[in-house]
Every structure is written in C-alpha cells, then in structure tokens.
C-alpha cells in the first residue's frame, strides 16, 4: 500500500498527514516531512493519522526523533489514530508523551 506523507506549517503549527502504512521501507518519507517542518521551528506538531492503517516501530522512532529534535516544550498531537496504532502507543509508553485527540483544533 505504501505511504503518502504531506505537510504544511501555518501560523507556527506544523501539520503532517500520513496515509497508508509506515514501516521501515516508508518511515524515511515521514521523517523527511518532520525535517521539513522543523526548519520553521513550529510551536506545535499535529499528526493526522485517520487513514494510517499500520505503523511499526520505524514510525515510533520518527515520533521519538521529532520530540528530541523539537524539544519537550513542543507538543505532539496525534489526531484520530486507528485502534492498532493506539495500542502500540500505549504498549510502548509513547502514549504519555503525546496528545491523542479526536480532532484538531482540540475541542473543549
């Protein structure tokens, strides 16, 4: 299935949309988008994952890399991830360091 990764930075908010599957063959595309948005020193990162069907540890490594590259003070929002991905984030403890939300901007 492969991966489509797109990004934009608007008013300091970096939005990355991931569609398809992140594995070791495709994680480089995800990382490229992180590198691209990092150049603009965003104050928030938002990962849209509604249509991401699979993410291996290669994708988790990019999330860890994102946090380390941008710093603890830049929050990472993960929007609408599928059940399998939520389980992986929980099992590996990444859940505690990101915000999993149903929509963005966050309501309420």
């Amino acid at each position, binding site marked *: 299935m492969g991966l489509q990764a797109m990004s934009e930075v608007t008013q300091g908010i970096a939005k990355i949309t991931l569609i398809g599957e992140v594995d*070791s063959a495709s994680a480089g595309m995800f990382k490229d988008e992180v590198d691209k948005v990092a150049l603009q020193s965003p104050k928030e990162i938002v990962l849209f994952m509604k249509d991401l069907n699979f993410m*291996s540890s290669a994708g988790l490594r990019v999330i*860890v890399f994102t946090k380390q590259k941008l710093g603890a003070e830049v929050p990472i929002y993960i929007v609408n991830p599928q*059940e*399998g991905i939520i389980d992986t984030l929980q099992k*590996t403890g990444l859940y505690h*360091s990101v915000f999993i939300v149903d929509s963005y901007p966050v309501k309420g």
Partner: protein
Amino acid sequence: MKSKTFPATVESLAPIREYLTGLSEAAGLDKKQTYNLCLAVDEVVTNIFLYGYGKSGQKGVVDVYAEMDENQLKISVEDDSPPYDPTKQNLPDEEDLKEPLEERPIGGLGLFLATTSVDEFKYEYVNGRNRNIFIVKRSSSK
C-alpha cells in the same frame, strides 16, 4: 503447511503483511489479532533484513510458513542470516517505557513489540537457519 518465500528487502514488508492478513482471515482472527501478528512479524523480519542479512552483506530470503489447527495459527519465519535470538536481547522494561520521549534511546522498541504482540513467541536455530515462531490463539479456542 502453507509457505511463501520473500526476498530479504524492506520492499517485502508490505507483501508479507498482505500474506499474513490473508492467513489471519482464514483462521478467523479478529482485526486486533491480525494487526498485532503483522506488527510482530514486521519487526522481526525488518531486523533480519537490516541487521541479519544487512550486516553480514548476505543476500537472501525469508520463508514464511503457516500451520493452523483448531486452537491456533502458527507462523514460522526462517532465514539464513547469522544466528540471532530475539528472546535473549535486552528489551525495554516498565521503567524504560515510562521515560519521557526526549530522554529515550531512539531504538529498542521493535523486538519488544515483536515478542509481546502475539500469544507466544519462540526462537529456534535449526539446520543452520533462524526460526522465529509466532503463535496466535484462535478466538474460538480462548
């Protein structure tokens, strides 16, 4: 027993997941079990491709075998790279997994996911081949 051979390259990851998904459907596994089986196998074969064959400079294949009975689906992945037992590696413990992301090592999660995402994970070295075994209980047998 069913089997399929894949070239040892990361381009095989998606076709392997597709093959496993078909086997899982035939075994009546639910969506979560199927996802976790794909994840576990993906992590191990990635390791074989990048570090097993990759480090030794070998080109090769992985053979994926499937056996099903009324209780379980058993997937065995065999390869010819140097012996490597995932069960003997230092995996992250509960304390490591509580570390904030900014203080974590970047790697180490793959084998943790591989060995914890299925009901049983085993490793054998048989006839000069690594054999990683993934067992998932069929819902009706739980």
